[in-house]
């Protein structure tokens, strides 16, 4: 693919006219619902201020509600309308809640009564369907859980609801998170809002597409080997994979327990950060969740000194050499190199860093993830819930229920994992992969001792065509090369759109991955926020909704 990069961005523009960065690119909801177009606005007492909050949809929502510029119901209606309009093309949702408007009206009544609002009040959140929701089906994109509604909310969902967030619905995914295109959903294929003939990435393709197409404001995904970051890259949104243990996994249907994390999607770094803050923290229901204090990530978004010409001065950034090798799309390489230049202009010191163990990550990941999944998916036996195929005897019932309930990619991974854990093979596969994992953790540690953050592409290419890799699992697995190492090391990483390559009606977004030290999400958010706010001539609104969104 030949790259057609945007013209190199220059900071001169930024320096000469810093106020341009304050441009308030709010999302204009569809006017069809009300005679007058409604727009977000800052609350009155801040309207004098030259620093409106940001282009964060979450903060804008809050300001709109508090200033009574918009009601929660108006906001919800506008999003639901757009959702309904887009959904036939995108198919990002497996289930849309029927109580969104009721919740919005309830919120409006609270506002009327001047009651205190939670920090996510009125924020419309979509949830990946492998995350349990008590009032909505949660199928993980699998037939084996068709019609299954859990009796409890995942901890992350519970926290969002408690802070006032409204769950819009459940988004499509590769079955149990196993896939990189969302084509492995048992129910439907989700399209990429930038070009509906292309995949949105995966496995959190539904959550990425929904945010990209403004069917919701933010969403939750899960990331076992890149399932938040790669679709964020394909759909041109911000995707944040937190440190392993930062967010409770309770209620996330396990794929590979030692790698799984719940992550966040937003149209801005700020939104991803605010959502992460909302769902982070120790959970007594998840023994692997960290007791570390959760810093106030939003501090990273306001502390930016806009007048400073080199806001990231002294920051050491390592560009991972192995991620720019053969096999990576030249357009992607150019976009990332340009992003590196951009970071340099912001004052960073960018150097190339080598992670020699990088290429070992992919096979180690697929051994470990498959092994754990073969165990985690044992519970889907048709005995207590989900689909049961009646049979003449016990073994047949197990076999038939599972044969019918699981799709081919899931079966492939269960078989791979079962094999890797079998007596006589354990040492050669599982144990060896664990050793590789330790090597990778160490090499990241070394690199992050010398650098504040590491950068790389989020994926070797931009979004590809639906069906292109469907019958070539190895090619699809290879696409995870950029992301799996981060899961093996348990580190936080953020992907944000940094440029475009040719393709589709309006070009295809390319994501830049920033990797930080464990529990250093704050630094990632700060750097990404400044990067995002200083990025010129790039507007990551997909053509599907470009007309609606000013």
């Amino acid at each position, binding site marked *: 693919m030949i790259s057609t990069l945007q013209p190199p961005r220059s900071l001169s523009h930024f320096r000469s006219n810093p106020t341009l960065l304050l441009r308030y690119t709010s999302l204009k909801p569809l006017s069809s619902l009300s005679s007058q177009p409604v727009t977000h606005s800052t609350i009155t007492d801040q309207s004098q201020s030259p620093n409106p909050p940001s282009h964060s949809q979450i903060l804008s929502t809050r300001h709109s509600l508090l200033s009574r510029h918009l009601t929660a119901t108006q906001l919800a209606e506008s999003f639901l309308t757009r959702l309904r309009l887009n959904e036939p093309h995108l198919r990002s949702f497996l289930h849309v809640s029927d109580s969104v408007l009721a919740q919005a009206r309830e919120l409006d009544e609270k506002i009327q009564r001047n009651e205190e609002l939670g920090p996510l009040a009125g924020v419309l959140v979509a949830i990946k369907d492998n*995350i*349990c929701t008590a009032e909505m089906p*949660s199928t*993980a994109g699998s037939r084996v*859980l068709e019609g*299954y509604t*859990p*009796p*409890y909310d*995942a901890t992350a969902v519970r926290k969002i609801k408690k802070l006032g967030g409204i769950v819009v619905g459940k988004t499509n995914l590769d079955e149990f998170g196993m896939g990189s295109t969302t084509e492995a959903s048992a129910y439907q294929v989700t399209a990429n809002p930038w070009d509906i003939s292309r995949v949105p990435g995966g496995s959190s393709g539904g959550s990425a597409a929904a945010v990209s197409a403004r069917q919701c404001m933010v969403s939750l995904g899960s990331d076992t080997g890149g399932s938040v970051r790669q679709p964020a890259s394909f759909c041109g949104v911000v995707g944040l994979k937190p440190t392993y243990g930062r967010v409770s*996994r*309770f*209620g*996330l*249907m*396990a794929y*590979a*327990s*030692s790698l799984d994390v719940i992550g966040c999607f937003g149209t801005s770094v700020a939104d991803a950060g605010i959502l992460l803050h909302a769902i982070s923290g120790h959970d*007594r*229901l*998840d*023994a*692997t969740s960290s007791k570390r204090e959760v810093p106030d990530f939003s501090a990273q978004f306001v502390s930016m000194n806009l007048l400073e010409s080199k806001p990231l001065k002294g920051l050491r950034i390592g560009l991972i050499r192995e991620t720019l090798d053969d096999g990576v799309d030249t357009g992607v390489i150019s976009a990332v190199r340009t992003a590196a230049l951009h970071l340099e202009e912001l004052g960073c010191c960018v150097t190339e860093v080598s992670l020699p163990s990088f290429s070992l990550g992919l096979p180690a990941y697929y051994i470990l993830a498959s*092994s*754990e999944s*073969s*165990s985690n*998916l*044992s*519970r*889907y*036996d*048709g*005995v*207590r*819930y989900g689909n*049961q195929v*009646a*049979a*003449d*005897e*016990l073994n047949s*019932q*197990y076999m038939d229920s599972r044969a019918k309930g699981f799709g081919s990619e899931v079966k492939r991974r269960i078989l791979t994992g*079962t094999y890797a*854990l*079998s*007596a006589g093979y*354990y040492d050669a596969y*599982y144990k060896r992969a664990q050793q590789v994992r330790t090597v990778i953790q160490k090499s990241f540690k070394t690199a992050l001792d010398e650098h504040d953050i590491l950068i790389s592409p989020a994926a070797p290419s931009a979004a590809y065509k639906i069906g292109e890799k469907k019958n070539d699992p190895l090619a699809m697995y290879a696409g995870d090369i950029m992301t799996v190492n981060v899961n093996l090391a348990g580190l936080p990483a953020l992907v944000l759109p940094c440029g475009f390559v040719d393709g589709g009606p309006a070009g295809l977004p390319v994501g830049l991955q920033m990797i930080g030290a464990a529990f250093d999400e704050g630094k990632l958010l700060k750097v990404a926020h400044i990067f995002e706010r200083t990025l010129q001539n790039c507007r990551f609104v997909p053509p599907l909704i470009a007309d609606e969104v000013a």
Partner: protein
Amino acid sequence: MRSAQTQTATQEKVKPQVKVSPHSTQSKALEKASKDYEAVIGIETHVQLNTLTKAFCSCPYNYGSPPNTSVCPICMGLPGALPVLNLKVIESAVKVGLALNCKLSLNSKFDRKQYFYPDLPKGYQISQFDVPIATSGYIDLDLPLEFGGGHRKFGITRVHMEEDAGKLLHSEGGSYSQESTFLFMLTINIVPLLISYKRVNYILVDLNRAGVPLLEIVSEPDMRNGIEAAEYAAELQRLVRYLGVSNGNMQEGSLRCDVNISVRPIGQLQFGTKVEIKNLNSFSSVSRAIDYEISRQVLLHSQGQDKEIVQETRLWEEGAQKTVTMRKKEGLADYRYFPEPDLPGVFLTTDYVDGIRNSLPELPETKRRRYEMMGLSMQDVLFLANDMNVAEFFDTTITKGADVKLATNWIMGDIAAYMKNEKLTINEIKLTPQELAELIASIKDGTISGKIGKEILFELLAKGGTVKGLIEAKDLVQIVDPAEIEKWVEKVLSENPKQLEQYRGGKTKLQGYFAGQVMKLSKGKANPGLLNKILLEKLNAKS
């Protein structure tokens, strides 16, 4: 909960058994052959811990609750649910590990043992595989005298933590069993019988027990016969009860023994083919099943049919008093163990271990050795140390100054008999150690007679109160005034001239009769020694 303990301990006590011998013709050959063979026995014991909540969730566990009333998303293995370890499980494991003289692993971990079965909701059991929490220990015990007595030391291979599975209720349905189907139903708050009219076979799953913490204790193959094995199990039961980590009840399945047994010609170093026996619900069935199985295997050996002994799991049938094949092993099961990623490693500090070590109660073996040093017979020692509460009662009585042997006799005699008759535990009787000591002292110093003492004892056992109070209320103080006793003696002699004549005529046995009459007259209060002394004087005095 304690009340059930003492009872079952007594009930489950192994009774001496004659070796099972199917036919008299065989039995002679068998007897001869058994001298040439020895059995090698090892035991895997599962001890259910009595923690307030299950191992990995906050559900309580109460034996006998209606099906599926103690369940939650975690122990039902619902999607997205995660285990969190109950720290009491580690505490119990460390206690048992220390009590079994094991080496503790300061860094251990949990693993998943994977297999499919409807009673295993997650499709894997959280267990410990290659790094158990405790290894390489031993247990000391004393065989009861009726089995020949003797001290034994059996090795403990390992102790590890794991979770229990649920229970299956199999239902046989009428005449269509050939084409029956299995319906797996999780009935929450629904009585399973509701669907029993359907003429099919199905299995009902009760997950109340799923996730209840267990300790698996694996012995070395150190036992040689049924009695040793049963006593090993009884000592484990005693130990876990002393430690307070389990009620050790075999009928409820809180203590389950799986026995591995093989037979080899004496002198052979190599083990014979191992057979596993399950379904052993009491110590006596452990003993009898093993002795049956030894006979069976020895017979096969002696008839040159040792090839017939195959690696298999056999079931003890209590009714038929024999073991039958349950399933033959088809190669080794591959459980595909791997480290449990949902749980962090188990790290013990030496401070933590020392804290637990210092809080351990006196254990049965130490107690038995101490009682032995006090001069008690082995029979007394075993009786007193069998039940921690009895031992504590005894110890307190001694502390209050009672004579060791007298206290033992009272406890093992009248008190034990009373408890047995009334089906009470020592904690339920009204008698306190303080009063038992008082009673013994009152007899010893002559305040009351032994006979009165016995009467008071039963009053104290049933109603409580104090020895002093009872003596006062019933005016039971022994009479030691010779003048008063003399008066009674004279009265009895004068009222029985015929007997007196007979006595003096040489029928001296009648002394007892006179003594009884005097005692009766004194309402039992006369000091027996004094009474007899005065009586003899009067009887033998020439008048």
